[in-house]
């Protein structure tokens, strides 16, 4: 057996969880190497959590939404299992509330300044353009810090320079190269995201090449063009249909030429349907880029000597999207919890962890991130701007 999940040499310790036997069973089930992620959340259970927290958020005029967010995230983390061990999200809602206040102030100041002093808009855009990567970096660090698996914290090593380069400076190249740089920029974004994360003291590393990302988008191009043409045709066709429908309604109208309330409602429903159909046509594009993009990112992510394997299928993901969109629209949003659970289950079940050595030897970080010193992070101004 090439995979030795817990071949750490310690003998006679039969109480440890995550035995090589379980690694074997993971292999036997899928015929593929590694340990599958498992999602155990249930739609009905999550619906009750979701709706109760939604009602509390509304009743408190949004203040409770920070607590709601933590509960929702905890539910998904705790129900995502790897080798029988779940993930944990331990952020304090008050700090999330603080982050939201900061984000709201920043956005509000921007909008107000733009409305009241249009002259200031341009310099402000510049300021916010540089501020955004910093906010994003802070949020990534916040969420990583409060994510725990097998007793170890995740972390995100913050580099303001890198954040500004990846999120503010490099995007300039996209229009300058007529979009050719876009795949390479996506690789930089994934590299920044993955490469700065760590689990305990072990950093993640990212190994995809620009060429791989270029291939991803080049192979997507026919789908994008086809779906784009389809979406355009649908828009044009329905526009024509609506015009002729409106004309015939007008012809049938009474003496005053009044198309009537019924016609107005019909027209509104049709324009609603048009927008919906337009997005439905683009669904294959979203699904394809998401599935293949996730696969590319995970398959080139390493944690020390360990790897990941992701095999999402664009077609299956599209069917899930389709089901979710229809369910949400026809239940006026009530199906959102089931949709989220379905998506989380699919993503988890198509991701595997491929150990390259004993996982037990992954250690905590140097910065002594145990409960005693964890709060130091918050004194340094940790917050989640929700980006």
């Amino acid at each position: 057996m090439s995979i030795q999940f817990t071949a750490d040499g310690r003998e006679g310790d039969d109480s440890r969880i995550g035995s090589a036997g379980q690694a074997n069973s993971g292999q036997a089930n899928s015929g593929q190497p590694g340990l599958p992620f498992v999602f155990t959340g249930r739609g009905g259970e999550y619906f009750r959590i979701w709706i109760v927290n939604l009602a509390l958020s509304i009743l408190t005029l949004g203040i409770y939404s920070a607590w709601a967010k933590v509960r929702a995230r905890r539910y998904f983390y705790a129900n995502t299992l790897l080798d029988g061990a779940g993930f944990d999200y331990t952020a304090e809602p008050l700090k999330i509330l603080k982050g939201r206040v900061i984000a709201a102030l920043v956005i509000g100041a921007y909008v107000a300044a733009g409305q009241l002093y249009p002259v200031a808009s341009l310099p402000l855009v510049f300021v916010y353009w540089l501020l955004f990567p910093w906010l994003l970096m802070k949020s990534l660090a916040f969420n990583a810090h409060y994510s725990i698996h097998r007793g170890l914290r995740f972390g995100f090593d913050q580099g303001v320079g890198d954040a500004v380069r990846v999120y503010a400076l490099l995007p300039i190249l996209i229009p300058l190269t007529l979009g050719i740089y876009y795949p390479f920029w996506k690789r930089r974004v994934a590299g920044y995201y993955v490469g700065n994360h760590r689990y305990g003291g072990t950093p993640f590393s990212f190994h995809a090449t620009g060429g791989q990302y270029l291939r991803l988008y080049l192979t997507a191009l026919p789908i994008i063009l086809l779906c784009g043409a389809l979406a355009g045709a649908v828009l044009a066709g329905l526009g024509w249909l609506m015009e002729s429908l409106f004309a015939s309604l007008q012809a049938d109208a009474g003496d005053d030429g009044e198309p009537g309330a019924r016609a107005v409602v019909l027209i509104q429903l049709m324009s609603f349907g048009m927008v919906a159909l337009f997005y439905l046509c683009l669904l294959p594009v979203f699904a394809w880029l998401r599935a293949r993009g996730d696969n590319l990112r995970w398959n080139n992510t390493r944690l020390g000597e360990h790897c990941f394997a992701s095999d999402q299928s664009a077609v299956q993901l599209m069917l899930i999207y389709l089901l979710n969109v229809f369910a949400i629209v026809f239940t006026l949003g009530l199906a959102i919890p089931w949709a989220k659970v379905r998506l989380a289950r699919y993503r988890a079940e198509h991701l595997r962890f491929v150990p390259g050595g004993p996982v037990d030897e992954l250690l905590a970080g140097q910065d002594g991130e145990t409960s005693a010193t964890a709060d130091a992070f918050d004194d340094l101004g940790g917050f989640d701007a929700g980006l």
Partner: protein
Amino acid sequence: MIELAGQYSDGRSAALRAARLRLGEESRVELLCGDEPRIFVLAQLQISERLGNTPRRIRLPGGGQFESADNDALDQWLAAQGRRGGEHWVHRLERRWRWALAALLISVALLGGGIWWGIPAAAERIALSLPAEVNASIGAGTLRLLDEALVGPSELPPARRRALREAFAALAVDHPEEHLRLHFRAGERLGANAFALPDGSIVVTDELVALADRDPAEADAEVLAVLAHEIGHVIRRHGLRGVLQNAGVVTLLAALLGDVGSVTALAATLPTALVHASYSRDFEREADAFALALMDRHGLPRERFASILRKLGEVAGDDHSFLASHPPTTERLQIIGGR
């Protein structure tokens, strides 16, 4: 004596070991994992709140943590220790379908009320308390865009324009602070139409004036009825209120239902299109009421508003018409006649 089965991790490595937590009398807790049992009291432990059936995390002094899915046993013991909220109150709501149903009813009622009454009322208060300049900034540059894309220069005889301008000035004199100005344009694709821009510019098309001029005796009053309606849009700040209301609805729905993932979040915000249509009809009704009051003050017969609406109904040819975003004409005529 209650014993929880679970897993222990020391917080220094990813190693996870099977362990038991023995919960005893007087808040005494014993961790059995490997060699020596370790003894704590409840006050030293940080126990995560219960959430569905997800495992509980019990943080121990020194950085270790014990995890167990035996939620009921733990809650039972916590309650026996007199620990308030052994079972967290939110969880008590979340675990029962009847509370979920109550939460659903509360959410629907408050969300619906907020969208239909709360947001429009708040937007109205904000918009009417802000200086006119803020409202004016909403439509800055719109007239130029219209000139470039949709309308052409007016071909009305100068004398006709002058007469209408004078009549308009007499209507607008009540609101000197609004900078109300009248513009004449050839409607072209827009046909017989009139519209107000938030900065106080009111545009009337040649086609609409021609429609009114079919009955020369009533012509001025009919055009003025439409202009009064448009003045209503400006005075009642419909431009700014529309922006505020739509931003409010999108923000509300995105904040409450967002966080779903891009595509599905999109589906959740689609109904805002329907809300928007309803808002704009409310504005038209308000502008109608404003116009009727203004006409009454200036001794213009209400019947002229009704007659121009009927004429507009006869020529309404395409969905760009003056009527497209308005309430049904029959309803408007009833309101005009009913006062």
